[in-house]
């Protein structure tokens, strides 16, 4: 149907929708990198594309990128580690990002975060031992008028409360 199909985020978005990622493969990576190598300032677009494909930036991707872009491996590593978005290991099956910034704090975000930690059983910034759920902090989703807010596997949620949060966590197949 036109409504939902039209508005749903495009397939292969940078957010991990349901986390159906390919496993690391150097040849695929090389093709992805080569396709973007001539863009001005290509490194961030390349890293986004790799993370979209594999769910993280494999350590072995760094020398490949360095080689194709003709920069040092240290430069690539520096960029990969500078930005919060780039993961160094495959993500959990579900990623729940909780906004921890001021507008969400003013509407009870801290208590919600504590509730999420207690329910999931890990502190924010960590993943459950079975790789089921990651709790990640995010500093502002721009949903400050419907705070507190969260993003579950790329889906935005506003006016979050304990009941909504419990429903979301129950919905996740852990």
């Amino acid at each position, binding site marked *: 149907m036109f409504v939902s199909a039209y508005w749903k985020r495009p397939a292969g978005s940078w957010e991990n929708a349901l986390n159906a990622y390919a496993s690391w493969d150097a040849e695929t990576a090389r093709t992805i990198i080569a396709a973007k190598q001539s863009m001005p300032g290509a490194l961030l*677009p390349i890293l*986004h594309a790799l993370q979209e494909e594999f769910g993280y930036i494999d350590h072995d991707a760094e020398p490949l990128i360095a080689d194709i872009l003709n920069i040092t491996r240290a430069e690539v590593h520096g960029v990969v580690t*500078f930005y919060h978005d780039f993961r160094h290991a495959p993500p959990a099956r579900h990623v729940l990002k909780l906004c921890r910034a001021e*507008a*969400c704090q*003013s*509407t009870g975000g801290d208590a919600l975060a504590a509730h999420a930690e207690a329910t999931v059983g890990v502190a924010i910034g960590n993943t459950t031992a079975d790789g089921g759920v990651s709790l990640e902090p*995010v500093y502002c989703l721009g*949903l400050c008028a419907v705070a507190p807010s969260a993003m579950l596997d790329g889906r935005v949620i*506003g006016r979050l409360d304990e009941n909504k949060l419990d429903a979301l966590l129950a919905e996740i197949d852990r």
Partner: protein
Amino acid sequence: MTLRLFVPGDAGAVALGSDEVASALQVAADRSKTPIELVRTGSRGLYWLEPVAEVATAARRVAYGPVTAADAESVFDSALAGDEKHPLYLGKPEELPFLKNQTRLTFARCGIVDPRSLDDYRAHGGCRGLRRALQMQPAAVVEEVTQSGLRGRGGAGFPTGIKWKTVAQTAADQKYIVCNADEGDSGTFADRMIMEGDPFVLIEGMAIAGVAVGATQGYIYVRSEYPHAIAVLNDAIRAARRGGMLGRNIAESSFAFDLEVRVGAGAYVCGEETSLLDSLEGKRGVVRAKPPLPAHRGLFGKPTVVNNVLSLAAVPIILEKGGSFYRDFGMGKSRGTMPIQLAGNIKYPGLYETAFGITLGDLVDRIGGGTRSGRPVRAVQVGGPLGAYFPRSMFHLPFDYEAFAKADGLIGHGGIVVFDDTVDMAKQARFAMEFCAIESCGKCTPCRIGSTRGVEVIDRIIRNDDRAGNKVLLEDLCNTMKFGSLCALGGFTPYPVMSALTHFPEDFGAPPRLAAAE
């Protein structure tokens, strides 16, 4: 006739279930075999009413809200029957007081038009500014923007026309227009709204900037936290290319201008213009020392205009109606309108565009309706995580760059976050330092080390460990950060910290100020 339905695809509305409402309305229409056209608009910015559904017949356009998927069928039937008795019926949206009292120049079309349709944009007055700019000398375009008094809406408040003039006068084989859409400040969402609701106004503003300074390539650097905005922008840019608004001969002129969206990667500091440029170049988003100014040596070493989304989106109406039209709004050196964002614990959260000069108290109490929790307003933070916290005793402050600077604060990107009386201001001050430590790019010492030391000092104050001595130390540290940091991250973090300490001393173990007790 075909019934036209409008449901926001704005991320804030989606977060409240507008996708489900849209689907349910379609189902209701299919069931009653009524042909409809369903348009996913942006939001008009009345978030307590979202998800809003609007219905247009030949005669008028009316709104319902807040609508849930379960209400969709009854709303649809009511709309079909033209019945005004439905409990969610709101009447004409532009008659709602929150909208009626605004001066919408930048946001004139947001929430009304189909953000992916260039035809719709043109039908609602779009592209007139660009057409006029193309008939003028580039220097006259710059002059028009200078005359308008437009200042950088990202927070720094630097006159946009002066910036453009510098780039226009710098000779180079390639120049760039960079749009800073790395809206990372908590409490702000105006950039997101305009990109999701009326992206063509931004594209038009950037094209005008390109014509004015002689740049042929533009980049919009959008944060990765804004997937909906990125999707709409990319669609709009494609439509603009097809429609001749971008490309080799824009609007059938001899000027060339094209645009590309680049996605950030979760670094707050990339909202600072020089680290944004480094990030665009594929580097770590580390702040550059100035000079050289980006206007002289910016992206890839070329002269570059770096402007915020709201600055660029204000340009089309300035060119269409003239600099003096825009200049006639506002007060003092703050000219035109500011899209103010009411956020956090507030009864009527949303986007309120109005001329500069409105008071903080008017915004929070009269327009915002106080807190959502129903408790008294204790503090408001204006201008994002680097903005000051103000108590009620400062509610007389007019919204104006200079007035806020004089009160040791800033208007920043125009976000206001409201806190009720349960807030612990020592905790908020600590968070400001903690946030700076997390997001510091690491280039300069006051920010990189100072923020971590700041957290430690505030922790000592909180646990009553030599409170008096540590308050002096905190003040000293804040001074070092304010005057010694390379950019606004380290330089402005003292604003929330010191304002919390000054206006709410009782939260730091001191007797309350007399002013705060009024």
